[in-house]
């Protein structure tokens, strides 16, 4: 098996008395798009900045490209900061060329790449426009272009979708997918779970500096008990006795919808089978999986944290 692109082990970071990151360990595999999720203040940006060497860890180790962290790895990294990090008075083309050259590209190559990327992003017409005169979406795309112009092997994106409209969010998603298709790895932090669901195979949820969950998106969904909604004219209270049903909530407000909470790994089909056995035909059977958003709220939010974290211990690989 090949070495992970990034391997973090027992990472700690303090700001004064406040522990921003505590005992964090995870890895990113070659060609993988890794979702780094967590609420505000969870320690995502601190971790990403430690990977880049912008902040020194207080404990733990970071390995990049199979070797201990060193500045020599920086040209192989691409970075998109959370806030727009471009010179306001620089022109779009100049900005991309400047950062690409800092990563070691020859000026002619940097210009050609900048030109190609701007064209691909539909920004050729603003190549000579100052950053301060671009819309937020355009500037963010120029920022992304500056992060990928040198074709980094590992892309670090801090909240890349923040403040963008759905069309621009889709463009950024496409860029990340293109990176993955080209065999490059990426890690991105976000609050918006849909992006992680669409882009990542694996995610990590950070809560108060600690890992609350790490695993596949499917595993994350299994953190929450599955709910099945059934509607029928008959009495469905017998479902409470079906093996694998943890709890049954009877209809409320005069509606005929019953809600069954299944135990872990119980398939919803057992309910349908039980209904058939009783000769009851449900007029509605809804067994959709919990969304990543629901998982995130449960795992990273204050209320559901204890429950989800205990499940995570069991589920995380």
């Amino acid at each position, binding site marked *: 098996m090949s070495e992970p692109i990034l391997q973090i082990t027992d990472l700690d970071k303090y*700001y004064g008395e406040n522990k921003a990151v505590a005992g964090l360990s995870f890895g990113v595999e070659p060609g993988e798009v890794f979702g780094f999720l967590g609420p505000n203040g969870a320690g995502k940006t601190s971790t990403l*900045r430690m990977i*880049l*060497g*912008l*902040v020194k860890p207080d404990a733990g180790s970071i390995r990049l490209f199979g070797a201990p962290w060193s*500045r020599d790895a*920086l*040209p192989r*990294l691409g*970075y998109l*900061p*959370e*806030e*727009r*990090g*471009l*010179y*306001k*008075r620089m022109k779009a083309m100049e900005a991309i060329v*400047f*950062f690409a*050259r*800092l*990563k*070691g590209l020859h000026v002619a190559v940097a210009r050609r790449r900048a030109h190609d990327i701007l064209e691909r992003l539909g920004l050729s017409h603003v190549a000579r426009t100052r950053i301060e005169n671009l819309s937020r979406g355009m500037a963010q795309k120029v920022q992304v272009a*500056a992060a990928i112009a040198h074709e980094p092997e590992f892309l670090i994106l801090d909240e890349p979708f923040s403040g963008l409209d759905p069309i621009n969010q889709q463009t950024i998603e496409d860029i990340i997918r293109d990176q993955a298709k080209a065999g490059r790895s990426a890690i991105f932090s976000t609050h918006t779970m849909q992006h992680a669901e669409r882009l990542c195979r694996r995610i990590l949820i950070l809560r108060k500096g600690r890992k609350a969950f790490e695993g596949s998106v499917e595993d994350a969904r299994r953190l929450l008990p599955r709910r099945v909604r059934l509607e029928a004219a008959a009495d469905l209270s017998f479902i409470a006795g079906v093996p694998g049903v943890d709890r049954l909530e009877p209809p409320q407000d005069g509606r005929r919808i019953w809600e069954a909470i299944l135990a872990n790994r119980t398939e919803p089909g057992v309910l349908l089978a039980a209904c058939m056995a009783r000769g009851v035909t449900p007029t509605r059977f809804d067994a959709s999986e919990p969304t990543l958003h629901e998982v995130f709220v449960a795992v990273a939010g204050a209320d559901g944290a204890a429950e989800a974290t205990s499940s995570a211990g069991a589920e995380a690989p």
Partner: protein
Amino acid sequence: MNDIRIIAWREFLQYIRTRGFILTLFFIPAWFILGGVVQQLVAETTSVRYFAVVDESGSFAAAIDRTLEADRQRAIFEGLVAWARANVDIAALSRHAPAVAKLLNQDGGDPATIARFVAAGGAGAVVAAVVPDLRPGAADFVPPRANLLRIDPSPDIVAAAKAHDRSALLPVLKGETPVATADGRVPLFALAVIPADFSATAPGFEYWCENQTDPVVQDFLRRALADELRLQTAAELGLAPASIHRLLDATVTVDRFNPSNAAGNGAVSQDDILRIVLPFGIALLLLVAILSISSMLLMAVIEEKSSRVIEMILASTSAERVMAGKLIGAAGAALILMAGWILGGGGAASLLTHSSPGGIVAALVRAHAFGDMPAVAICFVCGLAIHTTIFLGVGAMARSFQEAQSYLGPLLFILFAPIGFVTVVFNEPNGALATLLSFSPLHAPFFLMMRLPNSPPPIGTALAFLWMIVCTVAIVRLMIWGFVSNILRSEPSPGWRMLGHRLARIWRRPA
């Protein structure tokens, strides 16, 4: 090295493209030219003051005219000397017409010189004598305009003056009723009434003028009348007229020598004065250049911090290399600024003195202005390194312009406090204060530069240079540490209370 070069080039372009930089670049030469042009304009456009004298004694008007003519010839002589310096090959003139060359080298303030000038035929004769030695493209000599002219008052004015008729004199002295002169009808600036008993024992005269803030006519009349009273008094004492003139015209001339001057057996020339004044000017220009560039550097760092550009850059290279790039870029901009000012200043001097650029360079060579260049260059590099790194360090510490200003206030006070001592250092370049300031880390580059042409003690100067270089290295290293430690800091600076707690914790910590 490539990343340092890229950052340096971007910084350099960022500075030199700003409107502020371009304006600053043109400011000094423009200020030079403006100063000269304004001076010329004032000289050319100041209106001639026409004045009248009602001489009831009947014996002073002629004396006033004599003084007027002497002043006029002195102004022409001084104008001629300045014109000759810029337009005549004096060395060739000394061979071809040594008497004229000698005359042009004499003090115009000495009445004997003016007498010799008049006796030699005045401006016309001197200009004719120097024609063979005029430099190519020499300008024509234009005599300065007379600024004082006496006119004969009309009988009405005389009558009004004698009768103290204020209402009759008012329209005349306000310019509402112009008076007739050879130049046409002009406003009368002032009127003097010399009483019949005007003498050394009763030396008062009346001076009528609506403008009481312009003293030119009043001072001239006082001087002319005082000279005449002295002449009369001396005559009354039985002195011969020739003796009286010798007495009154006696002046003292000074031939200055400096034993350190090898040329001319120690004689001090204009070139020596240029050699002393030039480093002062360069030191002051360096101070202005450093402040301009450092301010831009500070603002750029704060902008990079607030816009998080610095994170993007530091994701590619180290803070030390970023700082090195910034310093090199700033140094390049400062060099352009200094070079622009010096070239522009030279151009302005060439324009104002009607000299060719080659003539200006020749004057600098004669003044040995380039002899101190290596030492000046060391001062320049140290001054720039010290102050730009301090401003960079402050920029890295601050989260906003307001915070930076709070740090800069005390720093600028320390930097500018010794400016008040510049005159003391100029007068006593090797005195205790000048020596002390040469060892002050923040000020040494400027004050050492100022002292260089005054033959400072070699050992003391060598020590001061060594100390300056050591301090520069120490300050730069300290500021690199400050920059690297703070450039990514976004949390507020610790308050006094927090600082106290931290110090107490360090104090209590067991060894």
